[in-house]
């Protein structure tokens, strides 16, 4: 296609990158490789370390080391005992350390002086001095305000610049084609077990979630293969590199939430109810909601009203919408449901993602007055689809048809381009995503599934995600073994 295609940026993401990096660093210090500073404490005990790590863990070190150009520097730390420094180093490299109660005060004192993040923080003192073990979870997310748990902060939002019109269009359009392929993938690559493929691609936040082992996403690739659209060679390769861990996450950057969220919701919702990911605490839920698309929402709602939230703030980084609802919101919503309100209504009333609410409710064992319909049957979605999309999608009969018709899409896309209407773009993205999500999986909406009863299909999916996940060898053609990849990365950094 046009030149716009060529410029499309893809985000290759490896979900385990952080973990691996940390592990590697820890391994490196153990063998004293690439160390570039020596810390000397009392009794001439020396520790070798990486300045990068020290600086990363302590603004104090950061400022000290900033203007030390030496290849290797010595840091003399008279008055500090060996065990203190050892503990701190271990903490800085692994995020945790076991110390005896007796040592805590002294270690904390040194930590305080060195401003070791998590143990000392000028702004946020979340530490619990009594605990003998500190985990990353306890560390104040100094840089990343929204990471209450050990889950690392979502990938930088900056990587999603406001999408230029053309690429967005193409991305949206592409995604319509991608599903068939994805399907193929599922069956062919056994390793690619779970549907979160899509979810990962799309839902930024969740992809980082440590609970999701999976990350291989073949977003762009898919259409590369399956369609005539465009070829992006570089992206092609990693796609095949489905390692067992599925380290790669592909995502066209521009797709971001707009195009992707509906996608995500749709293709994954069947599994959501039963996948391990649904077992989340409130905290996690909140975090998920960080990303507009992450809370699994009922498709119906997505198409209809649910769209609305996605449309206007298109350019906003996902995290801006993190706080869409508070805990009390969801508590109130749950209460309403308990009292007989439907989950959908309650979700609207309190601005809580319906899907999240539903899961909560379900977990609490509350029966909803009207189970949310999962999707096949759609209500008039007029408002959500400008440019006439709504009209076609409006009747209950076969709403998707118009959406999946490529020519129709194309037409709408062109219209959108012409008018430069973002909403149109968004709608298109949605439509494409919807198409992608629907097409492969079920024969076009013939029989409306009831919402929460796991369709057979769903079980299947779950199976993939849970049990097959680790059982299978990586598909042939693994290009980049994750480990090495990480090693490379870290060594380059040192």
């Amino acid at each position: 296609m046009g030149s716009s295609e060529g410029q499309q940026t893809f985000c290759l993401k490896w979900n385990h990158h952080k973990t691996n990096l940390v592990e590697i660093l820890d391994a490196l210090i153990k063998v004293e490789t690439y160390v570039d500073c020596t810390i000397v404490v009392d009794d001439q005990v020396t520790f070798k370390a990486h300045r990068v790590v020290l600086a990363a863990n302590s603004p104090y070190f950061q400022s000290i080391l900033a203007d030390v150009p030496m290849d290797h520097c010595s840091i003399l730390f008279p008055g500090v005992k060996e065990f203190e420094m050892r503990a701190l180093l271990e903490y800085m490299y692994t995020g945790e350390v076991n110390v005896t109660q007796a040592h805590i005060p002294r270690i904390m004192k040194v930590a305080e002086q060195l401003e070791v993040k998590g143990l000392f923080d000028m702004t946020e003192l979340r530490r619990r001095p009594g605990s003998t073990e500190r985990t990353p979870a306890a560390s104040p997310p100094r840089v990343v305000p929204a990471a209450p748990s050990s889950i690392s902060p979502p990938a930088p939002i900056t990587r999603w610049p406001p999408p230029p019109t053309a690429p967005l269009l193409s991305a949206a359009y592409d995604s319509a084609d991608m599903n068939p392929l994805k399907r193929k993938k599922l069956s062919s690559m056994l390793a690619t077990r779970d549907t979160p493929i899509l979810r990962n691609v799309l839902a930024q936040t969740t992809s980082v979630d440590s609970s999701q082992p999976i990350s291989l996403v073949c977003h762009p690739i898919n259409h590369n293969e399956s369609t005539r659209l465009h070829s992006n060679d570089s992206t092609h390769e990693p796609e095949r590199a489905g390692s067992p861990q599925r380290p790669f996450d592909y995502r066209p950057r521009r797709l971001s939430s707009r195009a992707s969220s509906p996608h995500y919701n749709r293709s994954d919702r069947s599994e959501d109810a039963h996948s391990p990911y649904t077992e989340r605490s409130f905290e996690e839920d909140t975090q998920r909601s960080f990303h507009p698309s992450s809370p699994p929402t009922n498709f119906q709602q997505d198409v209809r009203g649910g769209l609305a939230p996605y449309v206007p703030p298109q350019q906003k980084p996902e995290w801006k919408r993190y706080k869409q609802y508070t805990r009390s919101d969801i508590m109130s919503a749950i209460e309403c449901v308990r009292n007989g309100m439907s989950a959908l209504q309650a979700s609207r009333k309190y601005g809580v993602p319906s899907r999240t609410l539903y899961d909560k409710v379900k977990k609490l064992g509350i029966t909803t007055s009207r189970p949310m319909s999962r999707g096949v049957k759609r209500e008039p979605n007029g408002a959500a689809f400008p440019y006439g999309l709504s009209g076609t999608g409006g009747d209950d009969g076969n709403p998707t048809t118009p959406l999946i018709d490529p020519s129709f899409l194309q037409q709408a896309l062109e219209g959108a381009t012409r008018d430069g209407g973002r909403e149109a773009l968004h709608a298109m993205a949605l439509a494409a995503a919807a198409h992608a999500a629907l097409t492969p999986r079920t024969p076009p909406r013939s029989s409306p599934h009831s919402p929460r009863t796991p369709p057979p299909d769903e079980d299947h999916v779950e199976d993939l995600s849970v049990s097959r996940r680790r059982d299978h060898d990586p598909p042939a053609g693994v290009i980049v073994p994750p480990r090495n990849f990480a090693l490379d990365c870290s060594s380059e950094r040192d």
Partner: protein
Amino acid sequence: MGDQQFFLKWNDFQTNMVTSFRHLRDEKSFTDVTLACEGQTCKAHKMVLSACSPYFKSLLEENPSKHPIIILKDVSYLHLQAILEFMYAGEVNVSQEQLPAFLKTAARLKVKGLAEPPPQMPSIKREG
């Protein structure tokens, strides 16, 4: 003739040395050691530190390094600066309320002239 020695003396030698060192320190020229405390750092010269403090001397001797960074525990930055000032200039102004703590710190760092037991107590003048 050949064995006659001339005595060349620069009367301002000491003054010059002091001024020069001070100048070098202000310019951070040739500094080869970084002292850090309370999250702040200042640069100094090993030579001066070693000359003025057996503590630093042994510390630096034990840890030969091109540019070591010395993190001082329990030393206030204010005092550190005063001590450096004293080392480079031979004098420093310290407020009375700071004086005890300052001297204590100086003693810990074994700063000559401040820490050593009184053979030659520095004269403490009251100013301001």
